[in-house]
């Protein structure tokens, strides 16, 4: 089995874990919740194995390089990073209901990546032959993954708000305060990573092209995303924006993240044509 086949299979495992999270949170079955976590961990391990297998395969082909260089590979990484961030949240806050709102993201990322994009392992073009590649891509995607988690948490917050506070569901869900806090924590984690991703990208651009900032669409959209989350942090820390307003800003921020990640590549043209 090669890494591409393994990773396609893993996307189905993520799907299974999402189903299990949804079932466990609607039926309040602890047993089902444990199964969901177990499947998620299996998916996470398989996702990582696929990543390293692909790395090894590239070495066997004689032009070894870390698999972070095209749309497909970035989606494998995005799935893995989102699963990692989610599992950390679950370990720390001992709550599986968030899984129902986050676990579909690694499934979609890995599934769509395998279906829609070229999975061939190609060697590195000269522009990508740089040590900054690893630092830039990994920091960006840790940021994206944290924003994905904040998006899932904000969705859950909005759902919770619409529920009858005395109802059965509302009692199982994490409190509004905790969700609001998690939203903030995820963004406060993602923001420094996005900043680091933009800075490492600027350093790399300066080394490769002699300009650290050229208002390329990808750069510009990463700045727009950065501005939205900066607005979130300022509004919250200095003005106490919480709850619904924070959740809405977080959803807008994630929409900008997705546009930076996908929209720019397919709708706008620029220098950043790898992924």
């Amino acid at each position, binding site marked *: 089995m090669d890494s591409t086949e393994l990773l396609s299979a893993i996307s189905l495992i993520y799907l299974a874990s999402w189903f299990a999270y949804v079932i466990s949170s609607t039926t309040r079955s602890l047993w089902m919740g444990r199964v969901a976590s177990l499947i998620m961990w299996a998916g996470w391990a398989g996702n990582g194995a696929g990543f390293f297998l692909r790395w090894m395969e590239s070495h066997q082909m004689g032009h070894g390089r870390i698999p972070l260089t095209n749309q497909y590979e970035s989606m494998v990484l995005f799935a893995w990073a989102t699963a990692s961030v989610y599992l950390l949240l679950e370990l720390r806050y001992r709550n599986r209901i968030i899984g129902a709102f986050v676990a579909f993201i690694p499934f979609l990322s890995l599934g769509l990546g395998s279906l829609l994009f070229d999975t061939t392992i190609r060697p590195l073009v000269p522009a990508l032959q740089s040590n900054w590649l690893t630092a830039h891509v990994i920091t960006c995607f840790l940021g994206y993954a944290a924003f994905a988690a904040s998006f899932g948490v904000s969705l859950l917050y909005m759902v919770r708000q619409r529920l009858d506070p005395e109802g059965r569901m509302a009692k199982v869900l994490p409190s509004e305060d905790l969700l609001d806090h998690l939203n903030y924590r995820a963004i406060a984690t993602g923001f420094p990573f996005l900043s680091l991703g933009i800075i490492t990208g600027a350093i790399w651009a300066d080394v490769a092209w002699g300009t650290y900032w050229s208002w390329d669409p990808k750069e*510009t959209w990463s700045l727009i995303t950065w501005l939205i989350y900066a607005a979130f942090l300022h509004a919250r*820390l200095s003005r106490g924006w919480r709850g619904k307003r924070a959740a809405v800003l977080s959803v807008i921020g994630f929409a900008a993240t997705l546009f930076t990640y996908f929209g720019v590549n397919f709708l706008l043209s620029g220098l950043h044509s790898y992924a």
Partner: protein
Amino acid sequence: MHPRKTETQSLWGRLASLRLTLALFLILAGASILGTLIPQNRPFQEYLEMYGSVATRIFKWVGLTDVYHSLWFMGILGLLVVHLVACSLQRLPATWKSLRTPQRPLSDGLLKSLPVVKRFELEAGVEEVVEALRGSAPRFFSRFKQEKIGETLHLLSQGGRWSRMGAYVAHMGVLGVLVGATIGFAFGFKGFVQIPEGKSVELVEERGSGKMVPLGFQVKCERFHVSSYPDGTPREYRSDLVFMKDGRRELEGALRVNHPISFGGYQFYQASYGISARVTFEAQKDSAGPPLKIIMEPGDTSAIDPQGQIVVRFLRYETDLQGRGPAVLLAHLRQDGHPVAGWVFQRDGKATIGGWSLKISHVEEHRWTGIQVKRDPGVWIVWVGCGLIMVGCAMAFLGVHRRIWIKLEPGKDGTHCWIAASSNRDIEGTKRQVEMLAEEFVKKGVRKSRG
């Protein structure tokens, strides 16, 4: 007070308001979006075709065809700088003062203002509780300062004060990036030069203005190499360069993508490459007499008749156009004054211009390397600024300024106990810490009833 002073104060206050922060973020984001939706810095003709003449004229006038260098965009960035300075100057003294003020014992007034307060009763006396805690967790206990007011014992602790400075550090960093970028914009140089293999240059074309700027030394490209992987993906672009001053070879180096070379205050970057040619044409009228030989390179203009009346311009060279071999794009003025351009192929191609027939008799190809040249005196300030942003973020997001107050007041048969806390962020974590602390007290001091 003079009305004038209050006016400036309110302007100053407005310049430092959070509303302005959010407005600036929104405007910058909006302008940036516009700049990615409307293609930037394209030829006028392209805008006319896309948007029509009215919209194009409006776009040009507002500066939407070059948003990021327009006056209004720079104005917003300037306002951001003023805003950052105003915010720091206005808030720093208060933050500094509050960091320097020692923590006061818990008073009734303070108790009301604190976000986390827990009150409970213990059966043990004050001394017993303190001894038990000191015995079981000496390191934790040593973080608290003790203060006795009458019979009541106050335990005070605070940590992570430095995290309050994180925001100021990060904002200094943003300021550094903007200042560094401005210095680069005002005093830096960006240019591009094509060097044919085996040739040297000392003039570089400035980007934007098109001015030819002397470097003060010569750069020679001895060879240009391209290598590929077996599947055809390019592997390496490399120019073997020699930097010469007053005829002396000062530096030799291989210029590759991601491996710039510095010389004489400039940085050089491998940017592109191409193939050009020295083409020999033969011009003849009515197949009579010996043909006239003309040698041209791309960009050259030359007459093809002895009288110098028929002038052609060599626009472009293609090494293999449409699979039909080498071809040259030539332009000339028709008799009615209209310019016309057309491809002439070396293989069985002939152009007829003004009664003269023109054909390519010889092609001598050479490769050229395209090199980006820059000088940026502000770039190090940008990197220092980026470093400060990251250090500031780490301070602000990893550290928590947290203060804990414990008040132990002797009661009739036991101790009245308060634990209160405040923090600049992470109230959830602080709450949890207070809960844990209270549990520890109850374990050691035996809880009687909830207050």
